[in-house]
């Protein structure tokens, strides 16, 4: 079913991801991407508030935003929709988001190896230099057959070339 040769396109993939399941429920939207990064937006919504008396998004949806942006950054870097699983995700909250503000999550995949992908990113509500949160995560690639097993190696070298800024 999947087109093995087509390069992963985050803008196009987002049209599917953001209409289904948890990401669809959160109304996540694609904003932008580069060779090894993806930016998504989490709109402000009343039923996503974290406290009774403040119009501020809960921290939980921000984790979801960054987890999703992480996955898409990894697929974009690898150029391939290879199955991955989150191993470890850390979120450091710098400050609450502003009232009624959407939160923008930008995650870059800064390293891939044969079986792992490393990401870091920032969540902000308008000014990337004044972030709401920083994240760091590690994902594992799930290798289902020997042919798939070759993908991370190719992707890793591709990523190194792609992030070399030559």
């Amino acid at each position: 079913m999947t087109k093995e040769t087509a390069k992963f396109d985050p803008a196009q993939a987002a049209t599917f991801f953001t209409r289904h399941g948890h990401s669809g429920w959160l109304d996540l939207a694609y904003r932008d991407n580069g060779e090894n990064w993806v930016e998504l937006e989490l709109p402000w919504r009343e039923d996503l508030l974290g406290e009774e008396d403040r119009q501020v998004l809960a921290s939980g949806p921000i984790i979801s935003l960054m987890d999703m942006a992480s996955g898409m950054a990894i697929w974009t870097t690898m150029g391939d929709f290879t199955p991955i699983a989150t191993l470890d995700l850390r979120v450091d909250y710098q400050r609450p988001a502003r009232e009624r503000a959407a939160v923008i999550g930008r995650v870059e995949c800064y390293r891939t190896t044969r079986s792992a992908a490393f990401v870091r990113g920032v969540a902000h509500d308008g000014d990337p230099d004044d972030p709401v949160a920083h994240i760091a995560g590690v994902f594992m690639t799930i290798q289902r057959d020997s042919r798939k097993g070759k993908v991370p190696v190719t992707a890793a070298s591709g990523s190194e070339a792609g992030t070399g800024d030559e």
Partner: protein
Amino acid sequence: MSDPKSAIALPAYARSLGIKLHGFEGDLPVLTVEFGPSVEGRPQHFHGGATSGLLENAGYAALRTVLIRENRHPRLKPVNITVQFLAAGKSIPSFAQGRITRLGRRNANITVEAWQDDRDRPIATAIMNILMADEPE
């Protein structure tokens, strides 16, 4: 004494996602969420973000329960959360319970576990640091 139920008054986000109080185990609340579209990631599995949301809410619920018992009512501010994903969340209900590893005056360190059909095989764990700011009089 304060009503322990008020400790687990869940925020809008948690209610909207479908998180509910399952009961108390020991002295601390166990939260649960059914499997459904709002928590689904790849088909028929929990999204890591939804599992994280369950863990985080269970952490807050545990801390509020303990604080109310001590008649403390600070405003809680998240410092950080680190989630370890141990197994895929299947299309069955998930549960989570937090315990307070250390409760100081200004900071609480909380460990949270999430599981599904087997309490002894967690699907995810989290460590949270939460700041406790004095409630204005």
